């Protein structure tokens, strides 16, 4: 078995076989920066709610824990969604047209981490701004004019 697998791998190294896709991520082609945007909006909203929280209320600890937990989860979702867009959707030819793409994604991921670690409206706002930039490039690559809309303007 091992010999056969090695032979097939060698053969593929010399004559690479084309891919027959058996998954969703590539072939279904459904990508949209909206999922990152929605999660980023939740991070911003939780940050604001946490800063406004009245500590004298009896259930403040419970509410605080819930807000923090949601902010953590949503920030993780943003990072995942951005990574999928960056790694799976965008191709080298997009980078030729938009050389700033890598910097934007890098800044967005940095802002997502900062918004997760800290209680920072600035970081959460910066995250949304970078996702806005990604939104513009993304829909430009699709040659579609899609308006940037916030659920919570």
């Amino acid at each position, binding site marked *: 078995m091992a010999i056969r697998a090695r032979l*097939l791998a060698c053969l593929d190294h010399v004559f690479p076989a084309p891919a027959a896709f058996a998954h969703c991520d590539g072939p*279904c082609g459904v990508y949209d920066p909206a999922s990152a945007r929605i999660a980023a909006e939740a991070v911003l909203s939780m940050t604001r709610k946490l800063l406004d929280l009245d500590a004298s209320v009896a259930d403040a600890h419970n509410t605080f824990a819930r807000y923090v937990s949601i902010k953590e989860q949503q920030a993780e979702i943003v990072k995942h969604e951005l990574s999928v867009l960056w790694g799976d959707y965008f191709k080298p030819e997009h980078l030729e047209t938009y050389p700033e793409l890598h910097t934007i994604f890098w800044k967005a991921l940095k802002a997502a981490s900062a918004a997760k670690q800290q209680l920072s409206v600035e970081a959460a706002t910066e995250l949304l701004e970078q996702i806005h930039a990604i939104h513009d490039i993304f829909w430009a690559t699709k040659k579609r004019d899609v308006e940037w809309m916030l659920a919570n303007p």
Partner: protein
Amino acid sequence: MIVSQPALGALRQVGWWALGRRRRFRVVGPSMEPTLHHGEFVLVDPAWPPVPGELALAQHPTDPDLLVVKRVAAITPERGWVLTSDNPEAGTDSRQWGPLAPGAVVGRVALILDRPGARLDQPSPPSGGQGTGPGRHRWPPLPALARWLRR
């Protein structure tokens, strides 16, 4: 020396491959588990279309450059190929796309090179297909010799 039936079938497919009559593809993704594993190599027969229950290599409906491997659930004369995933949670198929155009299927998966003895047909027959008996929709009808040759 006694050679088993699956081994003979595999040798025949490799022979056709050596003659340039089969094409080799690499499986990417888990949607055909447990039949096909990610990273395995398969031989595809471009000359004969699959029948319901067999595995098809087909062009993706929105991106013809992408080839997908799926199981044929049914072939309906008016609507085309109904394709399914063996692992439906990990794939998109005719559930999302609807049936594929008659010209979308480019071949039949004939052999898994990594596991030549493995069965390609499903343990349980696919349901929902119209007239899913093997060979029912094949055209032209195969003489017994041709059937034996490509087994």
